[in-house]
């Protein structure tokens, strides 16, 4: 065991496997405290929001403060449904992956509010550049579940012709960009998209999501620089789920007080939001979308959350963090919190919740059966083999034609 003092600082997380996690040191502002400026606020004047935290649901599950978006119960129930569906779907897909039905899977457990509330606060005609943990957007936008599954099992029904890893969805019809496996690359692309939308005279807003770890990439800086310079109608979101695979967020954040603070270095309006609070996420995204739509420029948002499960099916977090950490997480579970809020409003109850879970579980099971009717990864049918030579160029050149012949297909 190395005994010397490290000669430069290497940040380590507070808790490692075996430790008893206790997050009482985290300074979490009370719900309702954050002020809600007008959507035309000068980005430089949002420092309090970048250092504080937009929270709407208080410890009694009541919606409080200026950021309360005052959404109708119907809409809240719809949000709850999408979040539960996301979770049920994730659980099922994980099991199926374990059974060898797909090569890989990534859950979004604990982060459902970020994707679902974010998507619901946008218009369906707004463009999204998600990363691999915002499948909730697809549910919120009503993508067909069977289609999603066909993609994940790469069968003949996969709209991506089996070319992408599972969960790396593309859905142009739904204004959902192509998810890249390379971290951060789509962040500056989203700015380019947003500029083109204005160029074409559209009032579409563009949003992109990356993780806390990804903020360290050069493309993060490129995105914020472009957005700031060209005053783009873009919403740049960072989901701080505390981890980048095994690496704690303190490796990317360094000495910065919050990830939201990074936006201030570009003069971009920057918010820090309770990512497990459906209402806060909704309110923040709604604010940012209105700001962008009205021509007041970009917004940069950090969602404070926690990755409640493994990074992916290739990962086992028990090797680097206490198993009990998710439970100890002070911001709770987004589904539980919205559920309790609805119950408090008298708009929901445990029984309806159970029924909903069952209904969605059945839907997922049924959908998977249907998905398999389009083929399985191992037994097919998959997309026809010659399709591997398509869509490289608009038209195949002689090399691809020869190579297809070489392969004998």
């Amino acid at each position, binding site marked *: 065991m190395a005994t010397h003092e490290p000669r430069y600082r290497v940040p380590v997380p507070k808790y490692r496997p075996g430790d008893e996690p206790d997050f009482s040191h985290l300074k979490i502002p009370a719900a309702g405290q954050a002020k809600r400026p007008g959507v035309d606020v000068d980005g430089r004047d949002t420092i309090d929001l970048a250092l504080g935290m937009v929270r709407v649901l208080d410890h009694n599950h009541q919606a409080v403060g200026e950021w309360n978006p005052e959404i109708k119960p119907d809409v809240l129930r719809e949000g709850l449904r999408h979040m539960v569906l996301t979770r049920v779907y994730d659980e099922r897909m994980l099991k199926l992956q374990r059974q060898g039905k797909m090569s890989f899977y990534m859950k979004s457990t604990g982060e459902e509010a970020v994707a679902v509330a974010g998507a619901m606060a946008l218009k369906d005609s707004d463009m999204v550049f998600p990363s691999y943990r915002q499948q909730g957007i697809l549910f919120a936008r009503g993508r067909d579940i069977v289609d999603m599954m066909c993609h994940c099992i790469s069968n003949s029904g996969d709209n991506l012709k089996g070319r*992408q890893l599972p969960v790396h969805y593309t859905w142009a019809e739904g204004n959902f960009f192509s998810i890249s496996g390379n971290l951060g690359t789509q*962040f500056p692309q989203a700015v*380019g998209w947003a500029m083109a939308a204005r160029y074409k005279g559209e009032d579409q807003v563009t949003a992109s999501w990356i993780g806390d770890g990804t903020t360290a990439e*050069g493309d993060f800086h490129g995105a914020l620089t472009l957005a700031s310079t060209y005053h783009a109608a873009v919403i740049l979101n960072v989901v701080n789920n505390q981890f980048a695979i095994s690496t704690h967020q303190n490796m990317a954040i360094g000495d910065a007080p919050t990830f939201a603070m990074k936006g201030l270095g570009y003069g971009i309006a920057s918010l820090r939001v309770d990512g497990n609070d459906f209402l806060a996420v909704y309110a923040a995204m709604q604010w940012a979308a209105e700001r962008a739509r009205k021509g007041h420029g970009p917004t940069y948002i950090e969602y404070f959350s926690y990755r409640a499960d493994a990074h992916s099916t290739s990962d086992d977090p028990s090797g680097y963090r206490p198993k009990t950490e998710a439970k100890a997480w002070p911001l709770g579970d987004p589904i539980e919190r919205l559920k309790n809020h609805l119950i408090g409003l008298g708009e929901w109850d445990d029984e309806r919740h159970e029924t909903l879970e069952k209904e969605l579980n059945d839907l997922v099971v049924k959908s998977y059966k249907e998905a398999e009717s389009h083929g399985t990864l191992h037994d097919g049918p998959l997309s026809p083999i010659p399709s591997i030579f398509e869509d490289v160029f*608009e038209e195949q050149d002689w090399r691809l034609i020869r190579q297809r012949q070489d392969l004998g297909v």
Partner: protein
Amino acid sequence: MPKMNMIQALNSALDIAMEKDPNVVSFGEDAGYFGGVFRVTAGLQKKYGLDRSFDTPINEAAIAAMAIGMAANGLRPVAEVQFSDYIFPAIDQIVSEMTRLRYRSAGQYTQPIVIRSPWGGGIRGGQTHSMSPEAFFTHIPGLRVVIPSNPYDAKGLLLAAIENNDPVVFFEPKRMYNGPFDGKPDGALQSWANHPKGEVPEGHYTVPLDQAEVVREGNDVTLLAYGTLVHVALSAAEKSGIDAEVIDLKTLTPYDIETITKSVKKTGRCIVSQEAPRTSGFAAELAAQIQEDCFYSLEAPIYRVTGWDTPYPHAHEWSYFPGQDRFINALKSVMEAA
């Protein structure tokens, strides 16, 4: 027909493309108001407005990414990288994103993008203003790489590249912006005004993206070149007295295998050339494919005339640059081989 140097020809192509299609936009470092450090985009901002021809922050990755986002959303961006030496910060966006987007989205998104960049040496630019990095790009599936060698082709190829729906990296041999270069640094500066390929129509035309051109017919040996080296190869062929057929590739990927093999099968000998360092350069690809396709016609090994496997030196530029003498030596060697 009007005379144009390569800068004027490229500028004319951009002007026509922007006039014709309101979705064409042009941007890059110093490429807006000032019109680029080589003035290729001069006048476009004034004519087409701040949002169609503009300056960017100095971040080549972000320039490429902005182009990707814009192109996916229906524009046809023409992005400038100030020197091809500085394209590397953007290569991840090109390899991992731009050239894969059509594929990984199964055609839902496309990338009609041109990345223009002044390319190659011979201007005493030292190691950071002289690189010929085309081989990196020819290895990327889904990417077209185009390198013109004269004003006429520059304009026609650039227009074709802009109108094409695949991503294109378009390298501009900066040594020849103002005139052809025969590879003898001490010779008098030449001008495009006296060169047939300096005659450039004012209006719209295209040069096809998949065709090489036999720029000198010959029977003894085939000499393949692109960009700056086309003129070096031609002058060397003249001086050597050897009946060399010189082919200007113009498009590197996909290269025009038919024109190449037809010539090599005729001559039975071949020299491939590039200014870039030798190992794993584009000349290797050509040699590998030609020996496969023309094996039974070859009377001598295919020779490579290339830069050395070193960074580009400053003071000894002309010992690095594959000039006339190196071509002539290669021509002699390949003719002697038997």
